[in-house]
């Protein structure tokens, strides 16, 4: 929002120079006129457009909306000043009025010749030479621009911040944590001119840097650990989150960083990491509610991708053109849907999975898991090698035996006639399970009935079953017969009165594609009649009262009338050749297997064979523990895209194909017109927005406000940059550096502008409350996660460990249960996971972590790029009474007592320094000493108070310390964590 204050600020410099259309005039026309006389004028039947120069200046039978040089002859001036309500513009119904100052600007601009400019953000950044100066203040290019602006405003920069303040500022900014006392000491001792630069290099090399950068990116990318909407079940996207951290830490080029997230899946032979990167555009919410119309939400997901992509990479509010042509920017509704078409081909369903990830997704082993997998594969290779080396001995012993072989690994139940046809000991599989059901049967006439099942014993019961149905082999997995099930049937019909070996495998992918049906060892083509499974059977699984049934299931009428000769239930997916073995196919390798498993085989060889089988089985099980991540993929058949009338999923209009908005430069030659081509175009240096929007967001991280304050909107309603030349210069530096992200952070934090003291005078505060002119350094409250991280860090509780599943730190009891579906409750993590950095905190979309919410974290429901900060009493209560800060206060107090030194003063100074990064002044030391004395007195006058006060959190107070002393130090510790300075980047 462009505020009055900013307008004054911008205007103050504007009047000194010639008016500029983009800076001074367009904002007025856009906000007050474009809604009717803008890109969408035609639909409203309005003949005049003020966003197009030719139209605005056209001769309309001797009348001109804008007549250069002739303000009094310009209709626009007459109309905004008209006294008759009917003639006055904008009409009263719009609620807008043009102020006197704005009229004066319009007049003057027309008088000066009404020179038009294309919207600045849609044209390439201009090469800028940093303005020359005789001042010795500038340290790099940034400062030349800042200084020139300050000079115009007759302001001067502030002095450099003190070394302690500066080190704390840059340590927070680059790592999200405060410096430690030894780091401060080292910095203060280093008197070389490069001391600061060395510190910056050290911080940029720290793995914490990636975590810091990722925290903001996760908000932009609406990352969360649940699906959102109503049910809000858990999903698993943390592998994508860890990829982001790692990408920042290895300083991946920013264009690649963006490109891989947008279209890594379409790169030639994409690596696992490139696939994981595409999780970016699967982070949107997913609706799992029973009653939804899936098509409606399939559209919402694509719209979300369009809005997120255009906001994050282009600073465009493309979403405004969903229902109608954009009111302010030159974007038509059709162009919205042409852009939409790039993201519309994901093979996905509008109804998301209730639990876990929704297709498409992939197993995404961590680095450690990949290493372990390699180890396991090595062990398997070693056994194979052993058997190969003994080949001649085995061959000699085997003597051409041709015995039948049946796979035995993973066999849960082997039924033969005479054995119980019901058991609870086998077949407890849920929808994510891997299994094989096999039966050797003789078909009845007609060939129909249940072969193997574990389900509620009714025709549409919950669970799974393998049946014959009118001759066809029928497989179902059912949570709700109506809308939550998979059903497939073979195309082929079996004949009555014949023997068959039937087998079905299911690989846990919760889709019909995960079901394979074999008859006599041959894979059968199937027809899928239902492919919408979302919820686990849960109570139809292992805990279920229903047993596994042989020859029955689905009600009495479904009892098998034929003959079952044998049945096998495996807890793994048998590969096709092993299914063939079941069917009695004779192959040399089966004979070999049968021999090796028999007592006739040499003992060492037999042991090796059995070990090999076990290793393979264990490896498969291990692979199933891999985390998964949702990724982007393209359907082979592009889904048709249409203009949706008024944005509604069920009102398709004109069909559209992928295409870029005309206002932007065209696709480079030779790139495909698909998502990959789009990604190449977005990340190309010719794109006027990508580098600017990114540098602007970086700038916001350091100074609290972007050079363009509307970081999400570079369109005509966006704010004119406070330093347009600087923004262009930064954008071109970014490109020139080869999209070097770390280099850009370094550029900003080593500027003199950044290194200024953040002290302010009342005059400057009044003149420039937001510090847009940069006559001082940045000073603002830390982001939510940094406040908690810093408290944990100061106390020493912080457990640093990069990546992994999200964790659940302390949270007031009952918050989930009160408003979520009844079975969901928050289960706190234990041990060190209580003290991880905030970006690893489990983010439930409908009930976000309360401390984060209190301190203005983004909502993670949709893309958020603008940082905002409030200052409320709830924050005060949070820091005073949340167990997180009470425990951290106590451990900080303990640390003061044990590490701080011999005297009270030393201990208090130590604690103060851990919290603020500097020594207390004498006044501050006195206040702290008084506070400690008070609390010592308070707790020793009634020691019974100390015990409960110390009992905060799961860590235990040090029993060696006197409880009253510790309690008093704990109170002071908590006081230190509440200081304005502690929660502020200064």
């Amino acid at each position, binding site marked *: *929002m462009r*505020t009055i*204050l900013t307008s004054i600020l911008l205007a103050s410099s504007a009047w000194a120079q010639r008016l500029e259309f983009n800076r001074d005039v367009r904002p007025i026309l*856009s906000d007050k006129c474009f809604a009717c006389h803008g890109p969408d004028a035609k639909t409203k039947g309005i003949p005049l457009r003020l966003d197009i120069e030719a139209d605005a200046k056209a001769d309309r039978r001797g009348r001109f909306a804008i007549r250069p040089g002739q303000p009094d002859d310009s209709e626009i001036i007459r109309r905004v000043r008209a006294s008759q309500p009917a003639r006055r513009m904008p009409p009263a119904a719009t*609620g807008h009025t043009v102020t006197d100052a704005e009229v004066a600007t319009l007049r003057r601009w027309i008088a000066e010749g009404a020179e038009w400019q294309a919207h600045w953000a849609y044209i390439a950044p201009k090469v800028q030479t940093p303005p020359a100066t005789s001042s010795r203040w500038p340290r790099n290019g940034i400062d030349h621009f800042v200084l020139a602006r300050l000079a115009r405003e007759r302001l001067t920069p502030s002095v450099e911040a003190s070394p302690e303040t500066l080190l704390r500022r840059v340590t927070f900014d680059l790592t999200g944590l405060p410096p430690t006392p030894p780091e401060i000491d080292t910095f203060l001792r280093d008197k070389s001119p490069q001391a600061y630069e060395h510190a910056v290099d050290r911080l940029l090399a720290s793995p914490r840097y990636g975590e810091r950068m990722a925290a903001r990116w996760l908000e932009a990318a609406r990352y969360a650990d649940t699906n*959102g*909407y*109503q049910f809000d079940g858990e999903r698993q996207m943390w592998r994508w989150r860890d990829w982001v951290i790692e990408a920042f830490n290895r300083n991946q080029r920013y264009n690649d960083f963006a490109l891989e997230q947008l279209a890594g899946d379409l790169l030639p032979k994409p690596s696992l990491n490139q696939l994981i990167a595409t999780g970016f555009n699967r982070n949107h919410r997913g*609706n799992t509610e*029973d*009653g939804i*119309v899936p098509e409606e939400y399939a559209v*919402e997901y694509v719209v979300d991708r369009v809005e997120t992509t255009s906001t994050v990479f282009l600073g465009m509010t493309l*979403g405004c053109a969903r229902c109608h042509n954009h009111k302010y*920017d030159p974007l038509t509704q059709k162009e919205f849907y042409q852009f939409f078409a790039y993201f519309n081909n994901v093979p996905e369903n509008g109804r998301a999975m209730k639990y876990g990830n929704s297709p498409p997704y992939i197993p995404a082993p961590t680095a450690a898991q990949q290493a372990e997998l390699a180890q396991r594969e090595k062990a398997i290779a070693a056994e194979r090698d052993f058997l190969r080396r003994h080949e001649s001995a085995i061959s000699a012993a085997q003597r051409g035996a041709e015995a039948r072989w049946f796979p035995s690994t993973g066999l849960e139940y082997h039924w033969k006639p005479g054995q119980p046809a019901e058991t609870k000991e086998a077949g407890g599989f849920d929808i994510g399970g891997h299994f094989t059901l096999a039966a050797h049967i003789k078909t009845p006439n007609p060939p129909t009935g249940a072969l193997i099942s574990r389900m509620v014993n009714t025709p549409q019961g919950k669970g799974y079953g393998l049946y014959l149905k009118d001759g066809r082999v029928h497989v179902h997995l059912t949570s709700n017969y*109506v809308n939550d099930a998979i059903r497939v049937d073979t195309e082929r019909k079996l004949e009555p009165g014949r023997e068959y070996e039937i087998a079905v495998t299911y690989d846990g992918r919760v889709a019909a594609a995960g079901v394979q049906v074999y008859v006599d060892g041959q894979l059968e083509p199937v027809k899928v009649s239902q492919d919408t499974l979302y919820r686990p059977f849960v109570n139809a699984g292992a805990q279920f009262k229903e047993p596994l049934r042989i020859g029955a299931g689905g009600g009495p009428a479904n009892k098998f009338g034929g003959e079952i000769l044998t049945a096998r239930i495996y807890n793994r997916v048998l590969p096709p050749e092993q299914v063939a073995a079941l069917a009695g196919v004779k192959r040399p390798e089966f004979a070999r297997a049968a021999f090796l498993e028999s007592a006739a085989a040499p003992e060492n060889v037999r042991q090796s064979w059995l070990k090999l089988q076990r290793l393979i089985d264990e490896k498969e099980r291990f692979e199933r523990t891999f985390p998964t991540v949702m990724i982007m993929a393209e359907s082979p058949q592009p889904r048709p895209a249409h203009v949706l009338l008024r944005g509604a999923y*069920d009102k398709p209009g004109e069909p559209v194909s992928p295409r870029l908005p005309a206002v932007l430069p065209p696709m480079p030659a030779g790139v495909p017109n698909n998502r990959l081509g789009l990604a190449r175009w977005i990340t190309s240096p010719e794109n006027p927005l990508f580098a600017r929007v990114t540098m602007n967001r970086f700038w916001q991280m350091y100074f609290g406000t972007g050079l363009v304050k*509307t970081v999400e*909107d570079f369109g005509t*309603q*966006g704010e004119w940059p406070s330093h347009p030349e600087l923004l262009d210069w930064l954008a071109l530096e970014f490109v020139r550096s080869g999209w070097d992200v770390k280099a850009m952070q370094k550029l900003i934090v080593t500027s003199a502008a950044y290194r200024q003291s953040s*002290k*302010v005078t*009342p005059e400057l*505060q009044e003149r420039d409350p*937001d510090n847009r002119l940069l006559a001082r350094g940045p*000073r603002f409250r830390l982001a939510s996660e940094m406040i908690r991280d810093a408290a944990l860090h100061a106390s020493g509780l912080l457990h640093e460990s990069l990546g992994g599943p999200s964790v659940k730190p302390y949270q*007031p009891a*009952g918050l989930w249960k*009160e*408003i*979520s*579906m009844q079975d969901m409750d928050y289960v706190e993590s234990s041990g060190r996971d209580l003290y991880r950095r905030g970006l690893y905190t489990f983010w439930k979309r*409908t009930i*976000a972590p*309360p401390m984060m*919410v*209190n301190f203005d974290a983004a909502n993670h*429901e949709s893309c958020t790029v603008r940082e*905002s900060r409030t*200052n*409320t*009493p*709830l924050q*005060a*209560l949070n820091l*005073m*009474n949340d167990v997180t800060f009470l425990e951290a206060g106590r451990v900080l107090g303990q640390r003061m007592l044990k590490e701080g030194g011999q005297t009270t003063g030393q201990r208090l100074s130590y604690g103060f320094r851990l919290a603020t990064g500097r020594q207390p002044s004498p006044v501050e030391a006195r*206040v*702290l000493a008084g*506070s400690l004395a008070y609390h010592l007195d308070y*707790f020793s006058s009634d020691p019974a*108070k100390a015990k409960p*006060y110390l009992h*905060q959190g799961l860590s235990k107070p040090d029993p060696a310390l006197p409880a009253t002393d510790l309690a008093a130090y704990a*109170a002071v510790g908590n*006081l230190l964590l509440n200081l*304005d*300075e502690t929660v502020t980047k*200064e």
Partner: protein
Amino acid sequence: MHPILEGQQLATRRSFFGKAGMGAMALQSLLGANNFPNFAPKAKRVIYLFQHGGPSQLDLFDYKPNLAKLSGTELPDSVRQGQRLTGMTAFQTGFPVAPTVFKFSPQGKSGTYLSELLPHTGKIADDIAVIRSVHTEAINHDPAVTFCQTGFQLAGRPSIGAWISYGLGSENQDLPAFVVMVSQGKGGSQALADRSWGSGFLLTKYAGVKFRSGTDPVLYLSNPAGYEPAARRRFLDDLAALNEHKLREYQDPEIATRIAQYEMAFKMQTSVPELTDFSKEPDSTFDLYGPDARTPGSYAANCILARRLAERGVRFIQLFHRGWDQHGTLPRDLRLQCQQTDQASAALIQDLKNRGLLDETLVVWSGEFGRTVYSQGTLTPTNYGRDHHPRCFSLWMAGGGIRGGITHGETDDFSYNIASDPVEVHDIHATMLHCLGVDHTKLTYRFQGRHYRLTDVHGRVIRPILS
């Protein structure tokens, strides 16, 4: 100290949650807003009794005596007109008409027909305006609640309470302008989300503050065990001394605001427990609100708390009562649900009236959609279920600005489509704002280049129900 800083500190010491409570950031957002109210308000505050899950209009408010003879017959296609159904009944083979098993009778002087499930509401029939012709766009809980709360089906926009606290601020500087309470119902409970009372793109200070039963009515309100108010006072004095030292050196007004917010937090530690402490309420209060009234966290107890908040000038008070989602065994479950809520809802109106507060308090009773006339699942003479129905539902409003004793709008014979005076959710919002003296087209906030409104480009004030 510089006069500006002093002035600011003073201002922030007096006012915290409301529109005058401002740091540098907040100040800017306020300059963007218009001045409200736009005209003389009828109501100073709102109590919004949100019945979450979709209460059945057919069994509570929308009297359709002629349906009885159509029991079990197929809902005519001419009525359904191919309208979309939820995925729960779209595959159902038949749509048998399920008339209500409950009796309706005229209530009060006005003769408003109400179900036997609402005997207490019957006693306030002359105070309430029942609207039977509300319709919504959404067919599922989450988007429908989000729509009712924010005027838009997808997450991201400010809730109505946030809009109002942004526009009107608070009358009570010691309490939040927007308070939310949640109670549990007897029926199938669907999930709620924090965003239902969130601030969307407005600053988070406008978000609803959830009051909970138990020792911490507001999160983190209570001091830790062993830490008494005297110690907290000393703690705050020391903290203020250190922060003021910093303020003198840096002159950043945010520090002054922070000092003031800690004072406010301290005041809340007294004012909120005093507010939630019912021990001084006479027995007659509990008798009025019914048997659950002494159970903290119950709907009835929350209604008493709503009245106490209204007395203290809290601007927007919203209760969410869960459990109105009767897909099956509706006759049994809806009765239980009404037993939990009917008496307390009526008592609240009566209580406000007795205290002279009803005229200046707008009370709204509503769910997020209605329920189908056809049975979900098997229809028997005594049992049926109903699926979600967005095409019509009923609600009532009472108090400041509302004409009591009337019904507005009609549905067709099947309570399926609206026959006259359709009312959109945006109209409800426009009317609520109107009662507060706010022109809904003027309450805007600029975000992403657009001037957003609670009512988007819609909303008409429902004139016939105004007093």
